[in-house]
């Protein structure tokens, strides 16, 4: 287990630094090397989760250690999809460190696996948790897109960049499109994340009804999940308000990530709830 955990972190770390070198050198071979590192890291991460599943006899999502491993795996998976489908190599500069932080935190909180209690031994458990972490991973990608949108220089407003573009014989359109890409990644990841999070809320409600006879509980985790859902519902609609579409929505997306982090980790660690680990 530990071997694969460390191997995964090393490959992610390597991929992260190599992609930085690629951005500095624009060398294609180095770019391919960073892809390979991430893919090998993801493969090692997948083996780690498979071993855990084999050892415990259930999906690896039943305690803080397992969910941190699963969250980081989901985050890297969406990052790899972005890399291979869109050739986009900047969002991972944020998502991969977030995933590595989660893995480091997991390493510090390692717990031996245990069989599932009867209440968790249902398909609703996997449906609820997988969709929830798919949502969290996509909200992390949205956070990355929003941060890049905020820090990426706007060609129209940055004379030096426009000048650089002119020097390269370009009109600055490339920079504009790249910045627009970050906005799209942020907004569409929210749309995807909201879809998965809605599935998670729905499956959680049905499961709670089947297990306890109520689909809503007056307790912090449920209330914070409701907060996340409404927060991103508001963010999706803010896209249609022209004056909020750009910077305002990007800032809201960044804040949203911290709301998600608090819902996942803060509530579980600081507040007593039915989801405490």
């Amino acid at each position, binding site marked *: 287990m530990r071997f694969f955990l460390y191997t995964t972190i090393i490959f992610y770390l390597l991929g992260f630094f190599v992609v930085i070198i690629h951005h500095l050198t624009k060398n294609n071979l180095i770019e391919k090397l960073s892809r390979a590192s991430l893919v090998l890291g993801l493969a090692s991460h997948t083996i780690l989760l498979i071993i855990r599943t084999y050892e415990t006899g259930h999906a690896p999502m039943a305690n803080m250690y397992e969910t941190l491993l699963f969250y980081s795996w989901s985050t890297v998976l969406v990052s790899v999809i972005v890399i291979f489908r869109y050739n986009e190599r900047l969002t991972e500069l944020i998502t991969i460190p977030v995933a590595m932080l989660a893995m480091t935190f997991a390493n510090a909180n390692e717990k031996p696996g245990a069989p599932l209690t*009867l209440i968790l031994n249902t398909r609703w458990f996997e449906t609820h948790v997988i969709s929830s972490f798919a949502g969290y991973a996509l909200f992390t990608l949205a956070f990355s897109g929003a941060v890049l949108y905020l820090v990426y220089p706007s060609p129209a407003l940055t004379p030096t960049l426009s000048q650089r573009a002119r020097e390269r014989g370009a009109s600055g359109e490339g920079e504009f499109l790249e910045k627009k890409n970050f906005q799209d990644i942020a907004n569409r990841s929210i749309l995807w994340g909201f879809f998965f999070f809605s599935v998670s809320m729905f499956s959680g409600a049905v499961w709670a009804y089947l297990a306890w006879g109520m689909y809503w*509980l*007056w307790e912090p985790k449920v209330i914070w999940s409701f907060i996340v859902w409404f927060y991103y519902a*508001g963010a999706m609609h803010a896209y249609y308000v022209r004056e909020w579409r750009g910077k305002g929505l990007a800032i809201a997306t960044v804040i949203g990530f911290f709301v998600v982090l608090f819902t996942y980790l803060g509530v579980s660690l600081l507040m007593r709830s039915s989801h405490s680990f």
Partner: protein
Amino acid sequence: MKTIWRFFSSVTLTVILAILIVIDSIWGSLIVKNNPEIYRGIDQIILLPWLFKYGIKNLQMTLWIFILISLIFLFAINVFVCTVDKLYSILKNKLPIRTFFPHIVHIGFLIALFGHLVGSLYGFRNPVIPVMKGEVVSILQQKNISIRFDDMDVKLSKTGMPTELKIMATLFENGKEILMDNIQINRPLLYKGIAFYYADHSETPAGIVLKIGDERFSAKFNSSFTAKDGASFKLGAIIPDFAMDEKDSPYSRSNEFRNPAQEIIVSRDGKTAKGWLVISRPGSKTTIDGYDIELADYIMTQYVVMTINKDPGIIWIIIGSLMLTIGMFLLLFFRGERAELIPSRS
């Protein structure tokens, strides 16, 4: 009227209400965190009748819920007006079907919300109903329906952890047996909208084994038996925390079973004598009417604790939530390139 309609059809209002709902809920989560006992209690009841009867007198605890309900009500009006507006436009201009997808999400949300409202107004919750093995218990709110706990099957792993748990039960309606089924964890027994859940189980004494002279008698509480010499013994009242006052009259110091005692009534030759036997542990003795009576053992029986709830809103919540997620799916995959994180710009 037009101004009000326009006000409620605004997307800006949607965003502002979402922000206010988030802020109010964050405030509420802190109140819930600091008062878990109170809010755990609210989980066991139907919300709105309680809120307007008792919650209104405890506004420092419940004000955020009143604000939340008001904000969600405004949000629902906002969603409704927006949806009606857009649907009118879709139908009037014969827009393609894909323009309808976001409104499937909106309608689903409104239906789920309606389900929450129905569930918060009607139905009932009985969180703790102990049922002894073989006992028939009627539902407090629907007395014509009752349930009997027939048997129980628990399979344990090598480590002693339950791996399977089944409660066999029989349902009765108007005294007639209508259904035999089992209740499992995550699988309640459902009948006419009433759901029967397993909450807990254990064993409890259903009677005692007495040694009187050379004879042993097993008797359930509130039952009688006769000895060889013709004397009749009846198990009467039980005092949970037995003590005698200055007049030698028995009384209970508390309602907890700290020192339970069983009243035993002995009848022989038309004469009756009463006495008390402490039944907190086997071996305790008493003498009544010349009979030396000793508690030899207990007759144990299984019981389950059931939760019996009825929530008429659940079906609407399921329909609404399904519509919401299906609408989101259609929106992602069948409305332009929304599933693509970066759209093609050709």
